[in-house]
Protein backbone atom coordinates (compact mmCIF):
# COMPACT_ATOMS: atom_id res chain seq x y z
CA UNK A 1 0.00 0.00 0.00
CA UNK A 2 1.19 3.48 -0.82
CA UNK A 3 0.56 5.19 2.49
CA UNK A 4 2.17 8.63 2.19
CA UNK A 5 -0.77 10.77 0.98
CA UNK A 6 -3.21 9.09 3.33
CA UNK A 7 -0.75 9.22 6.20
CA UNK A 8 -0.19 12.90 5.46
CA UNK A 9 -3.91 13.70 5.70
CA UNK A 10 -4.21 11.59 8.82
CA UNK A 11 -1.28 13.31 10.53
CA UNK A 12 -2.60 16.70 9.47
CA UNK A 13 -5.95 15.93 11.12
CA UNK A 14 -4.20 15.05 14.38
CA UNK A 15 -2.12 18.21 14.16
CA UNK A 16 -5.24 20.33 13.61
CA UNK A 17 -6.87 18.69 16.65
CA UNK A 18 -3.89 19.65 18.79
CA UNK A 19 -3.56 23.19 17.46
CA UNK A 20 -7.22 24.12 17.69
CA UNK A 21 -7.67 22.74 21.20
CA UNK A 22 -4.38 24.34 22.24
CA UNK A 23 -5.61 27.68 20.92
CA UNK A 24 -8.88 27.35 22.86
CA UNK A 25 -6.89 26.64 26.02
CA UNK A 26 -4.61 29.61 25.33
CA UNK A 27 -7.68 31.84 25.46
CA UNK A 28 -7.76 31.19 29.21
CA UNK A 29 -4.38 32.81 29.66
CA UNK A 30 -4.95 35.72 32.07
CA UNK A 31 -8.66 34.80 32.26
CA UNK A 32 -8.58 31.73 34.51
CA UNK A 33 -10.35 31.84 37.90
CA UNK A 34 -7.10 32.36 39.80
CA UNK A 35 -3.38 32.69 39.19
CA UNK A 36 -2.28 29.11 39.89
CA UNK A 37 -4.94 27.69 37.57
CA UNK A 38 -4.00 30.24 34.94
CA UNK A 39 -0.43 28.94 34.86
CA UNK A 40 -1.54 25.33 34.94
CA UNK A 41 -3.93 25.82 32.02
CA UNK A 42 -1.32 27.65 29.99
CA UNK A 43 1.00 24.71 30.64
CA UNK A 44 -1.53 22.30 29.21
CA UNK A 45 -2.14 24.63 26.28
CA UNK A 46 1.57 24.67 25.50
CA UNK A 47 1.68 20.87 25.61
CA UNK A 48 -0.90 20.85 22.82
CA UNK A 49 1.00 23.51 20.90
CA UNK A 50 4.16 21.41 21.13
CA UNK A 51 2.22 18.39 19.93
CA UNK A 52 0.84 20.38 17.00
CA UNK A 53 4.31 21.50 15.98
CA UNK A 54 5.70 17.96 15.96
CA UNK A 55 2.71 16.67 13.99
CA UNK A 56 2.74 19.52 11.45
CA UNK A 57 6.47 19.07 10.88
CA UNK A 58 5.96 15.37 10.32
CA UNK A 59 3.00 16.05 8.03
CA UNK A 60 5.10 18.51 6.03
CA UNK A 61 7.76 15.84 5.55
CA UNK A 62 5.17 13.28 4.51
CA UNK A 63 3.65 15.71 2.03
CA UNK A 64 7.03 16.62 0.53
CA UNK A 65 5.55 19.62 -1.27
CA UNK A 66 7.77 22.29 0.23
CA UNK A 67 5.26 23.47 2.82
CA UNK A 68 6.56 23.73 6.38
CA UNK A 69 4.77 23.57 9.73
CA UNK A 70 3.94 27.29 9.64
CA UNK A 71 2.48 27.10 6.15
CA UNK A 72 0.23 24.25 7.27
CA UNK A 73 -0.90 26.03 10.43
CA UNK A 74 -1.22 29.62 9.22
CA UNK A 75 -2.04 29.47 5.55
CA UNK A 76 -4.91 27.03 5.28
CA UNK A 77 -8.51 28.20 5.35
CA UNK A 78 -11.34 26.96 7.49
CA UNK A 79 -12.59 24.34 5.04
CA UNK A 80 -9.09 22.87 4.75
CA UNK A 81 -8.85 22.34 8.50
CA UNK A 82 -9.48 18.74 9.52
CA UNK A 83 -9.90 18.97 13.30
CA UNK A 84 -12.80 17.31 15.09
CA UNK A 85 -15.62 19.67 16.01
CA UNK A 86 -15.27 19.14 19.75
CA UNK A 87 -11.89 20.89 19.65
CA UNK A 88 -13.18 24.10 18.07
CA UNK A 89 -16.23 24.83 20.26
CA UNK A 90 -15.83 28.15 22.08
CA UNK A 91 -14.26 27.87 25.48
CA UNK A 92 -17.51 28.81 27.24
CA UNK A 93 -17.36 29.12 31.01
CA UNK A 94 -14.81 27.28 33.12
CA UNK A 95 -17.22 24.35 33.52
CA UNK A 96 -17.54 23.95 29.76
CA UNK A 97 -13.79 24.02 29.21
CA UNK A 98 -13.38 21.53 32.06
CA UNK A 99 -15.95 19.13 30.59
CA UNK A 100 -14.41 19.30 27.11
CA UNK A 101 -10.89 18.85 28.45
CA UNK A 102 -11.88 15.89 30.59
CA UNK A 103 -13.61 14.09 27.71
CA UNK A 104 -10.74 14.74 25.29
CA UNK A 105 -8.04 13.82 27.83
CA UNK A 106 -9.87 10.57 28.57
CA UNK A 107 -9.94 9.87 24.83
CA UNK A 108 -6.28 10.74 24.32
CA UNK A 109 -5.09 8.15 26.84
CA UNK A 110 -6.21 5.00 24.98
CA UNK A 111 -5.71 6.68 21.61
CA UNK A 112 -2.08 7.61 22.30
CA UNK A 113 -1.38 4.26 23.96
CA UNK A 114 -2.34 2.59 20.69
CA UNK A 115 -0.64 5.19 18.52
CA UNK A 116 2.63 4.34 20.33
CA UNK A 117 2.50 1.07 18.39
CA UNK A 118 2.03 2.73 15.01
CA UNK A 119 4.10 1.36 12.14
CA UNK A 120 5.18 4.92 11.51
CA UNK A 121 8.07 5.36 13.99
CA UNK A 122 7.70 9.15 13.91
CA UNK A 123 4.03 9.03 14.93
CA UNK A 124 4.84 6.40 17.56
CA UNK A 125 7.54 8.63 19.00
CA UNK A 126 5.29 11.70 19.15
CA UNK A 127 2.60 9.58 20.82
CA UNK A 128 5.06 8.37 23.44
CA UNK A 129 5.93 11.90 24.44
CA UNK A 130 2.32 13.11 24.31
CA UNK A 131 1.08 10.19 26.39
CA UNK A 132 3.04 11.30 29.44
CA UNK A 133 1.57 14.78 29.11
CA UNK A 134 -1.94 13.45 28.65
CA UNK A 135 -1.70 11.32 31.79
CA UNK A 136 -1.11 14.51 33.71
CA UNK A 137 -3.85 16.37 31.81
CA UNK A 138 -6.36 13.67 32.65
CA UNK A 139 -5.39 13.72 36.30
CA UNK A 140 -5.99 17.48 36.38
CA UNK A 141 -9.27 17.50 34.46
CA UNK A 142 -10.59 14.56 36.46
CA UNK A 143 -9.86 16.47 39.67
CA UNK A 144 -11.80 19.44 38.36
CA UNK A 145 -14.79 17.33 37.32
CA UNK A 146 -14.96 15.89 40.85
CA UNK A 147 -14.43 19.28 42.44
CA UNK A 148 -17.08 21.10 40.41
CA UNK A 149 -19.56 18.24 40.05
CA UNK A 150 -19.54 17.47 43.75
CA UNK A 151 -19.05 21.12 44.72
CA UNK A 152 -21.68 23.80 45.14
CA UNK A 153 -25.18 23.72 43.62
CA UNK A 154 -24.01 26.32 41.11
CA UNK A 155 -20.87 24.46 40.02
CA UNK A 156 -22.82 21.20 39.77
CA UNK A 157 -25.52 22.80 37.65
CA UNK A 158 -23.03 24.43 35.29
CA UNK A 159 -20.91 21.32 34.83
CA UNK A 160 -23.94 19.12 34.18
CA UNK A 161 -25.14 21.63 31.59
CA UNK A 162 -21.70 21.60 29.97
CA UNK A 163 -21.65 17.80 29.68
CA UNK A 164 -25.19 17.85 28.24
CA UNK A 165 -24.17 20.43 25.64
CA UNK A 166 -20.97 18.72 24.57
CA UNK A 167 -21.87 15.04 24.73
CA UNK A 168 -23.13 14.86 21.15
CA UNK A 169 -19.72 16.00 19.92
CA UNK A 170 -17.92 13.06 21.54
CA UNK A 171 -19.19 10.51 19.02
CA UNK A 172 -16.97 11.98 16.34
CA UNK A 173 -13.95 10.89 18.41
CA UNK A 174 -14.84 7.29 17.59
CA UNK A 175 -15.51 7.60 13.88
CA UNK A 176 -13.03 6.86 11.13
CA UNK A 177 -13.41 7.52 7.42
CA UNK A 178 -12.43 4.99 4.78
CA UNK A 179 -8.90 6.30 4.39
CA UNK A 180 -8.34 6.09 8.13
CA UNK A 181 -9.71 2.55 8.21
CA UNK A 182 -7.12 1.55 5.61
CA UNK A 183 -4.42 3.03 7.85
CA UNK A 184 -5.84 1.06 10.78
CA UNK A 185 -5.73 -2.17 8.76
CA UNK A 186 -2.14 -1.44 7.74
CA UNK A 187 -1.06 -0.88 11.35
CA UNK A 188 -0.49 2.88 11.17
CA UNK A 189 -3.46 4.21 13.13
CA UNK A 190 -5.47 3.24 16.24
CA UNK A 191 -8.93 1.81 15.65
CA UNK A 192 -11.20 4.60 16.95
CA UNK A 193 -14.46 2.64 17.36
CA UNK A 194 -12.58 0.07 19.43
CA UNK A 195 -11.39 2.76 21.88
CA UNK A 196 -14.87 3.55 23.16
CA UNK A 197 -14.96 0.99 25.97
CA UNK A 198 -11.64 2.20 27.39
CA UNK A 199 -12.83 5.81 27.11
CA UNK A 200 -16.06 5.06 28.93
CA UNK A 201 -14.12 3.32 31.69
CA UNK A 202 -12.23 6.59 32.25
CA UNK A 203 -15.33 8.79 31.99
CA UNK A 204 -18.47 7.15 33.33
CA UNK A 205 -17.28 6.21 36.87
CA UNK A 206 -15.90 9.72 37.35
CA UNK A 207 -19.23 11.28 36.35
CA UNK A 208 -20.96 9.07 38.91
CA UNK A 209 -18.45 9.95 41.61
CA UNK A 210 -18.95 13.63 40.79
CA UNK A 211 -22.73 13.11 41.27
CA UNK A 212 -23.28 13.94 37.60
CA UNK A 213 -25.69 12.25 35.22
CA UNK A 214 -24.25 10.61 32.11
CA UNK A 215 -25.94 12.43 29.22
CA UNK A 216 -28.13 10.47 26.79
CA UNK A 217 -26.67 9.43 23.44
CA UNK A 218 -29.60 11.19 21.76
CA UNK A 219 -27.83 13.26 19.11
CA UNK A 220 -24.48 13.58 17.42
CA UNK A 221 -22.73 15.81 14.90
CA UNK A 222 -19.66 15.29 12.80
CA UNK A 223 -17.95 16.61 9.69
CA UNK A 224 -14.73 18.08 11.07
CA UNK A 225 -12.53 15.57 9.26
CA UNK A 226 -14.23 16.52 5.98
CA UNK A 227 -13.78 20.24 6.60
CA UNK A 228 -17.41 20.94 7.49
CA UNK A 229 -17.00 23.02 10.62
CA UNK A 230 -19.11 24.99 13.05
CA UNK A 231 -19.27 28.74 12.62
CA UNK A 232 -16.74 29.09 15.44
CA UNK A 233 -13.62 27.80 13.69
CA UNK A 234 -13.41 30.74 11.28
CA UNK A 235 -13.31 33.20 14.18
CA UNK A 236 -10.64 31.16 15.92
CA UNK A 237 -8.49 31.03 12.79
CA UNK A 238 -8.88 34.73 12.07
CA UNK A 239 -7.21 35.44 15.40
CA UNK A 240 -4.69 32.60 15.15
CA UNK A 241 -3.63 33.42 11.60
CA UNK A 242 -3.88 37.21 11.72
CA UNK A 243 -0.16 37.99 11.84
CA UNK A 244 0.81 35.75 8.95
CA UNK A 245 -2.13 36.93 6.86
CA UNK A 246 -1.46 40.61 7.51
CA UNK A 247 2.34 40.38 7.31
CA UNK A 248 3.19 37.36 5.13
CA UNK A 249 6.47 35.72 6.06
CA UNK A 250 6.83 37.78 9.24
CA UNK A 251 9.30 36.33 11.73
CA UNK A 252 10.46 37.30 15.18
Amino acid at each position, binding site marked *: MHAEPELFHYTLGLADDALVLGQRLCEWCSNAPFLEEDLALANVALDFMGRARMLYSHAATLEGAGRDEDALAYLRDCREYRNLLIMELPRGDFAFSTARQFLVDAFNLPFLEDLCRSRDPELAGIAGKALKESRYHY*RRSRDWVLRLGDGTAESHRRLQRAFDEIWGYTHELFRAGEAEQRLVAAGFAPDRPALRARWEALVVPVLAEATLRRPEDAWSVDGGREGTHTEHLGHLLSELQFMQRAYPGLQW
Partner: protein
Amino acid sequence: MVPGQHMPLFEVFIRSRRGLDHKHVGSLHAETHQQALEYARDCYTRRSEGVSIWVVRSGDIVASQEEDAGEFFDPMDDKPYRHATHYRLPPEVDNM
Protein backbone atom coordinates in the same frame (compact mmCIF):
# COMPACT_ATOMS: atom_id res chain seq x y z
CA MET B 1 -14.20 27.93 46.99
CA VAL B 2 -16.07 31.01 48.15
CA PRO B 3 -15.59 34.04 45.88
CA GLY B 4 -13.47 36.74 47.42
CA GLN B 5 -12.11 34.37 50.00
CA HIS B 6 -8.59 33.02 49.60
CA MET B 7 -7.91 29.33 49.48
CA PRO B 8 -5.37 28.01 51.99
CA LEU B 9 -1.75 29.01 51.45
CA PHE B 10 0.91 26.35 50.89
CA GLU B 11 4.69 26.60 50.96
CA VAL B 12 6.54 24.81 48.17
CA PHE B 13 9.89 23.04 48.51
CA ILE B 14 11.74 21.62 45.53
CA ARG B 15 14.71 19.30 45.30
CA SER B 16 16.50 20.25 42.13
CA ARG B 17 18.48 17.04 41.82
CA ARG B 18 19.22 13.89 43.70
CA GLY B 19 21.59 14.34 46.61
CA LEU B 20 20.55 17.91 47.33
CA ASP B 21 18.10 19.16 49.93
CA HIS B 22 14.61 20.42 49.24
CA LYS B 23 14.72 24.21 49.06
CA HIS B 24 11.92 26.65 49.67
CA VAL B 25 10.95 28.21 46.33
CA GLY B 26 7.74 30.07 47.07
CA SER B 27 4.10 29.66 47.98
CA LEU B 28 0.73 29.25 46.31
CA HIS B 29 -2.97 28.95 47.06
CA ALA B 30 -4.80 25.67 46.63
CA GLU B 31 -7.84 23.86 47.95
CA THR B 32 -6.13 20.64 49.02
CA HIS B 33 -2.65 19.18 49.43
CA GLN B 34 -3.05 17.22 46.21
CA GLN B 35 -4.03 20.30 44.23
CA ALA B 36 -1.17 22.24 45.82
CA LEU B 37 1.25 19.56 44.61
CA GLU B 38 -0.07 19.81 41.06
CA TYR B 39 0.04 23.60 41.02
CA ALA B 40 3.56 23.47 42.43
CA ARG B 41 4.48 21.28 39.49
CA ASP B 42 2.92 23.78 37.08
CA CYS B 43 4.16 26.97 38.73
CA TYR B 44 7.65 26.00 39.87
CA THR B 45 9.01 23.12 37.76
CA ARG B 46 8.16 24.25 34.24
CA ARG B 47 11.81 24.42 33.22
CA SER B 48 12.70 21.05 34.76
CA GLU B 49 13.88 22.59 38.01
CA GLY B 50 13.01 19.60 40.13
CA VAL B 51 12.97 15.89 40.81
CA SER B 52 10.87 16.06 43.97
CA ILE B 53 8.31 18.44 45.45
CA TRP B 54 7.10 18.96 49.01
CA VAL B 55 4.11 21.11 49.87
CA VAL B 56 3.11 22.03 53.38
CA ARG B 57 0.31 24.24 54.64
CA SER B 58 1.83 27.55 55.64
CA GLY B 59 -0.27 27.53 58.80
CA ASP B 60 1.43 24.30 59.90
CA ILE B 61 4.87 25.88 59.99
CA VAL B 62 6.03 26.92 63.44
CA ALA B 63 8.47 29.80 63.04
CA SER B 64 10.91 31.40 65.45
CA GLN B 65 10.03 34.94 66.41
CA GLU B 66 12.07 38.08 65.93
CA GLU B 67 11.96 38.90 69.64
CA ASP B 68 13.48 35.49 70.48
CA ALA B 69 16.56 36.19 68.38
CA GLY B 70 18.62 37.22 71.41
CA GLU B 71 18.26 34.02 73.40
CA PHE B 72 18.02 31.79 70.31
CA PHE B 73 20.99 32.83 68.24
CA ASP B 74 23.33 35.24 70.01
CA PRO B 75 24.89 32.65 72.37
CA MET B 76 26.42 30.93 69.30
CA ASP B 77 28.41 34.01 68.28
CA ASP B 78 31.34 33.41 70.67
CA LYS B 79 31.84 29.71 69.93
CA PRO B 80 33.94 29.75 66.77
CA TYR B 81 35.27 26.25 67.56
CA ARG B 82 31.88 24.91 66.47
CA HIS B 83 32.49 26.09 62.93
CA ALA B 84 34.31 23.62 60.70
CA THR B 85 36.06 26.45 58.87
CA HIS B 86 39.63 25.30 59.35
CA TYR B 87 39.37 22.21 57.21
CA ARG B 88 40.46 22.36 53.61
CA LEU B 89 37.93 20.52 51.45
CA PRO B 90 38.95 18.63 48.33
CA PRO B 91 37.29 20.10 45.22
CA GLU B 92 35.35 16.86 44.63
CA VAL B 93 33.25 17.59 47.71
CA ASP B 94 30.58 19.92 46.49
CA ASN B 95 27.54 21.29 48.22
CA MET B 96 28.94 21.42 51.77
